[in-house]
Each structure stands twice: as C-alpha cells, then as structure tokens.
C-alpha cells in the first residue's frame, strides 16, 4: 500500500527561505535511507504558494486566484509517496524524519493512497474467510 506523507508549510517556507546545510544533509540522509530500503517512490519539495495559483470552481465558472494563500499551516510544503506494508510502517518511517522546520511546531500528515484493490472485492470479509479456509485445508493435507 502507498501513503502520501505531507510536510506542512510555515511562514519561513512561504517566504521561500531555503533550509540550512545541516537540515538539507539530514533530510538527504533520511531520503537515502528510505530509498535504500526500497520504500520511497517519490518525494518533492514545493515552492511557496506565491508562485502557485488556485482554480476556483463555482457552477460552470472557473476563476483563477493567484497565490500567496493565507492559511499557511494548511498549505503543503512538500511530500513523499512511500510504498509500505501497513499504516504503522508509514508512521514508523515518518517518526524517523528529521524535524522539517526546526524550532517551529508542525506536523507531517500521513494519508493512504487509493489502490485499485480498494475498489474491487479483493479484501472483503468473504475473501478473507475463503483464504483462511484454504490455509486450513492446506495444513490438513500436511
């Protein structure tokens, strides 16, 4: 399963203040660790919202609103997409992440990506029961 792990913006990141050398090297080490473990699929840092825009949908109208946007703490400053075996594993990886904004309280939000099997019937209770039944039968044969 895949998770998007979202780093939030701060006033600093919204001013496009680049992280210092120490931060960059710690983050680089963390990224390398995830890559070496075969977990990291993607990871990007985002520029400030002043360089972005929003397309507002209202009825049939589309209105373009240029950045910056005010609700800093709700904005995204970067993300990873990781492939892991459980939400717990995603949590454990992100607990190992260096503080993304030293000195400023913040959070990393972990959100599960929809997989195709989430739409199908692969993991319904019926299938699981079936699987348990097969296991029991296989064990009986041994």
């Amino acid at each position, binding site marked *: *399963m895949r998770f998007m792990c979202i780093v939030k913006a701060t006033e600093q990141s919204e001013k496009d203040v680049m992280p210092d050398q120490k931060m960059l090297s710690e983050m680089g080490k963390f990224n390398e660790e995830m*890559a*070496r*473990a*075969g*977990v990291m*699929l*993607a990871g990007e840092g985002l520029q400030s919202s002043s360089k972005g825009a929003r397309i507002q949908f209202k009825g049939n109208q589309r209105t373009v609103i240029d950045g910056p946007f005010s609700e800093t703490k709700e904005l995204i400053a970067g993300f990873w*997409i990781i*492939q*892991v*075996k*459980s939400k*717990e*594993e995603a*949590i*454990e*990886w992100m607990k*190992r992440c260096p503080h993304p904004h030293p000195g400023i309280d913040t959070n990393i939000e972990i959100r599960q990506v929809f*997989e*195709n*099997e989430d*739409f*199908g*019937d*692969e993991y319904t209770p019926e*299938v699981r029961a*079936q*699987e348990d039944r*097969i*296991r029991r039968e*296989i*064990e009986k044969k*041994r």
Partner: protein
Amino acid sequence: MTAPDIHRTISAVWRIESPRLVAALARITRDVGLAEDLAQDALVAALEQWPKSGVPDRPGAWLMTAAKRRAIDLKRHEDMRARKHGEIGRQADALTLLGPDYDTALDDDIGDDLLRLVFTSCHPALPPESRTALTLRLLGGLTTDEIARAFLSSESTIAQRIVRAKRTIDEKQIPYEVPRGMELGARLASVLEVIYLVFNEGYTATAGDDWLRPALCDDALRLGRVLAGLMPDEAEVHGLLALMEIQASRIGARTNDAGEPVLLLDQDRSRWDRMAIQRGFAELERAESLRSARGVYTAQAAIAACHARALTADETDWPRIVALYDELFRIMPTPVVELNRAVAIGMAHGPAKGLASMDAIVAEGDLEGYHLLHAARADMLEKLQRFGEARAEFEHAASITQNQRERALLLERARMCAMNA
C-alpha cells in the same frame, strides 16, 4: 495502544530495522544462521517488553542491545560447557559471538553486508522454497507468520524451511561473501530468480482462489529496489526491476470487479498505474545504457514496455514485439518464450501464421499439459472462426489449469465458441 495495535507497530519497526540488524550481526559473527537467531531473540524480547514499556525512541539500537545481551548469555553458556568438558576447540566459535562492534555496528555502512546476505539467502545450494522464505525474512523483514500468509502456507512449514536453510548454510559451509568474477553472473541469476519468483507468486497466484496477491508483488518490488541500490551497475538488476514495475502497473486492470482475470489486450488501460510505468521506463533505460546486449529480464522488460507505450491495444507495435521475442528466444530458448513469440506472430502477421507457430510447439511436445498453450491455440482458432476446434481447446485448457478463476474464464470462452459454432 491496544494489544493488536502494538503488535502491528512492532512488526512495522521490525520490517524497517531487521535487515540492518541482521546484516550488522552477520558482520560481527560471520555466521548468518547465528545472526538470524540473535535477531529473532531480540524480536522476542521486543514482543515481551514493548507492549508494557512502549516502543523505545531508538528501536534499532534497542534491538541491537538485546541481541548483544543474548550473545553474552550464549557465550557464558558456551564457556561453561567448554570448561566442564575441558574443551578449547569451540572457544573460537564462542568468541565470534562477542565483538566490540555491537554498539557501533548499526552506524556503519552496512551495504556490503546486506549484499552478502542477499547472496547467502539466494545461494543455489539451498532448496528453492527455502531461498524465498529466507530472503523475505532476512532482506524483506517479514515475520514467519507474514511469509506463511503470503504463500498460503502454515507458520510451522515456513519455520521449517528457514531452519533447513540455516542448516544447509552451516553444513555446506556456504561462505558469507559476495561472489566475484565468473561466479558472480551465475549467482546473480539465482538472486534475480528468487525475487522474480516472489513477484510471480503475487502476480499470478498458483494456489488458491485469488488470481493476484498484490502484497507479494510489493515485497518483490521492494527487494528489487534494494538490490538496485546495492548493485547500481548491474544491467539485469535494473532490467528485472523495470519488468516488475511495468507488470505491476497493470495490477489494477488485471481483474474485473468479480475478481476474474482480464487479459492484457482487454484491459482498461486507463487503470494502469502511470507512475509505476514511468519508474519502469527509467529502470529499463538504465539497464539498456549499462549493457548493449539485453539480458533475459531486460528483454522481457522491453517487451512489457511496448505494451505500456500503447495507449490502446490497437496501437501495439507487434512487429517490434516479435523482434524482441526473437532476441529473447536466442538467449532464453524455452518453449514458453516460443509460445509467447507465436502469440505475437499471430498478432503481427495474422492468426493463421500464429497458429502455425503454435502447432510447431505442439509437435515438439514440451508444453503438453501447459494450459496457456491450449488457451493460445484456442484463441487463434477462434479468430480463424474454427469455433468447434476452438471450443475443444478452451475446454482442454480449462481442464488442466490449477487456478479456479482462470478456469471459469476459459469455460466462458468455450461457451462463446459453442454459441458461434
């Protein structure tokens, strides 16, 4: 945290920490079996203590300390035994239990040790099913129970396979090292085979009602990425990863809502995972840039890439696929490759040519009893509107497949032929 929660957390921590832990322990002890034992003892200690104490801040260091404590116990035990029997011969073994290195071992670059672990776990002297179990356990960080679930097997069976593997490593004195020179090629082939076996067990489950076990595909991809990081200059490592990424990109389209298989050309390509395809293309490009002649995995990845590039089935470049199969057949002259080539010929040059190629394979007799040969022949016959023969071939294929979902699909196609006849 409730009991099941903490256990899920412990297995998550284990997955992250255990490959490094085992690699570091194997470096100290030079003994994979012993390293694995010590790591397992550390896991048992975690399972006992973490539910009460909570997960420590530095779980990797905690596990290493627990493993070290266990090694000290073992050494004390061994010393006592040796003194009692006046032995000195085994002292040397006991000494390997204790190095000054435990405290710093995790901080070292353990890349080389991970690679030694890979080659030990996939050693051709081990029984094949032991290789997969040991690899998933040591490199994939899976617990015995998780491996058992993945292979629809029992925990005791998997545990036995791992015990057998460790005994073989001990008995045959398999060295803990990365092979060099001439030997490397053959040994790497064995490693790639193990990873692709895990992938295929997930991609086309040979047992049970489900056609797909995506979790096993993910495990194989993860192992493939780890290996690509450890051996960045080996073309076929990237070729295998490319092949797995591109094949895995289709997972969402390979079954319909009822869980039945959907054939490649009938798949809804909008459901293919474009990010996985892009990762696959990047790996393929890397593989092809490292070596001009494609190896078996790179050639298969190049074929898979042809399909991935076609946004609709009609846009498939079949002549190129035939050419790539010709190339693959030269380095991997198996009847299954020949069959796939025949299917491609059928698509590129018409069903009559395809059928002729398949009839040649039937005449060779190597694939008698292989349901896909009969399914492919049936498909050609159906396209040639020889519905009676097509129906008989579909039914024959259905009667010999092991997979229930696939059988249902084949019988359905037989029924369609009967209606057209």
